[in-house]
């Protein structure tokens, strides 16, 4: 097919100039410029984080990650308590959110009639839109007393022989932060998992049912394994959210840079210490140690997000192709 209205341009330069004059190439280049700026912003972000954490990287090296002291007065900084707090609270969050979230997604995708499923999904997605500082507010004034008065005494009475459930009950601490984080990430697991489950071809279910499987067997042994990669993707995605979540954790974790085996003990997380101390930090080494913590958090979440997106794309042709 050729366009007869335009004289055939001789050579690529002429054609380019022609398109430039008619505006097509201009529009192309302008939009391309904006699209490229996404790379620029990301590159600048990485550069700023790396460049501004040079001091602690040279002074502490890898020891930064295994040192337990955080002493701004004598400028001795170690990240271990914060990494520990971040990992423990995120693990707790997933422990709560994965069974609940995947269960709810199975209900919404396999059992509920479509209108009900859509309505419930809408509500769950609204939950994802609630600002996390509001979760923090609820956490501080509702969840913390609730944990201190009901949940923690119960756990101590029943599972108190484990070192995880020993020690005084404050209400604030790893456990409460983990529970709150769990509530925050459930909507992400539900909405992505449901989407992935709905993308499983109907034949798969019909074949299993035709072989005499019950509804649950068809779901658990055929549909869920089929969507496995995508569900793992959603879990990774919510793990990245949990690791980076700042406000809600800062408000309930207790902000004590200590490693404790008990889940009742107050702790600290990477995001929480940045939020609390960054604007008040004095001295380059102090500030840059906090930036290095930010860099660690950034790399962790990038890794998890990168993996998650690829996994979701692999199952549902979704994720990166449309949000």
């Amino acid at each position, binding site marked *: 097919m050729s366009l007869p209205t335009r004289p055939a341009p001789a050579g690529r330069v002429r054609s380019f100039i022609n398109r430039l004059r008619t505006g097509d190439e201009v529009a192309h280049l302008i939009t391309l410029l904006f699209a490229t700026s996404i790379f620029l912003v990301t590159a600048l*972000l990485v550069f700023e984080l790396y460049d501004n954490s040079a001091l602690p990287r040279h002074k502490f090296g890898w020891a930064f990650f295994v040192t337990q002291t955080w002493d701004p007065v004598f400028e001795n900084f170690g990240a271990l308590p914060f990494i520990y707090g971040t990992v423990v609270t995120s693990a707790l969050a997933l422990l709560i959110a994965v069974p609940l979230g995947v269960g709810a997604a199975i209900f919404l995708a396999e059992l509920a009639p479509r209108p009900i499923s859509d309505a419930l999904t809408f509500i769950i997605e609204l939950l994802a839109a609630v600002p996390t500082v509001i979760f923090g507010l609820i956490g501080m004034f509702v969840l913390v007393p609730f944990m201190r008065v009901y949940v923690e005494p119960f756990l101590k009475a029943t599972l108190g022989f484990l070192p995880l459930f020993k020690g005084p009950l404050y209400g604030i601490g790893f456990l409460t932060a983990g529970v709150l984080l769990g509530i925050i990430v459930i909507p992400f697991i539900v909405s992505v998992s449901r989407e992935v489950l709905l993308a499983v071809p109907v034949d798969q279910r019909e074949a299993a049912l035709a072989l005499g499987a019950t509804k649950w067997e068809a779901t658990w042994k055929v549909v869920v394994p089929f969507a496995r990669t995508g569900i793992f993707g959603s879990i990774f995605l919510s793990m990245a959210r949990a690791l980076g979540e700042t406000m809600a954790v800062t408000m309930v974790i207790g902000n004590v840079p200590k490693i404790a085996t008990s889940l009742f003990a107050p702790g600290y997380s990477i995001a929480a210490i940045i939020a609390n101390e960054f604007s008040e930090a004095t001295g380059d080494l102090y500030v840059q140690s906090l930036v290095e913590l930010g860099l660690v958090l950034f790399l962790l979440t990038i890794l998890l997000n990168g993996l998650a997106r690829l996994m979701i794309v692999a199952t549902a042709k979704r994720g990166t192709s449309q949000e």
Partner: protein
Amino acid sequence: MNYRYAWRRVVNAVMLTLTGLCALVTVSALFLILGYLVYNGGRDLSWDFFTKLPKPVGETGGGMANAIVGSGKLLLLAAMIGVPVGFMGGVYLAEYGGKTFSFLVRYTADLLNGVPSVVMGIFIYTAVVIPMRGYSALAGGLALGVMLMPIVLRSTEQFLRAVPVSLREGAMALGARKWKAILTVVIPAGYKGIATGILLSLARVAGETAPLLFTSASNRFWSHGWLHGETASLPVMIFYYALSAYDDWHRQAWAAGLVLLTLVLFANIGAKLILSRSATR
């Protein structure tokens, strides 16, 4: 054999009920949060909250007028910075993009979307606040604007892709250049979706606290100007008021939480309604 079949039936019923319970628990969480906020915040929400400045420390009463205006300022700046980049980038991906380069842009945008908001705060602090020697509304707006970019980009692309190819072909068959077809036919056809996408992304960054803590910070009076000086915002006020030791401040934090949540939920519900209505038509 019959015994085994009965057992399978029981497992079926129990597990399916459990999944229903999971869904119920998750959904009820929203209503608990909403109910508690309305109950607690509604009591202390008064006209003063919207019109008065915070009272000096120790006095009760006063409002958060400066934080409401500050949040508005920050969102306006964020929209001015984030929306053009996201929108134009989305147009590129949907209309011009090739395969590999587009995939890279999309993937980078998704990664940028997943960057913890507190890290975004550090980025703007080192890149903007330090060179400009101080907190400003501009720095806060930039932090939110950068968060806006990938979200707007992806939603714009998605809604432009939903515009039928026949519309583009029709415009070009009438002799329109490609850019003219995009500008006068494709974008108007998808504008409703694009606008709701922008609304949703603004609702999302409106509640962000962590990136503002050390970019626009907070204060207790009117902040004039955009380039210099702390600017209060609702989420940051909620954070500081909740952590304070005064009961009156706690009550105001609840009221502010109710206002913020109402705004965010209304934006979300409105956007969903617009989208579902245009989808059924």
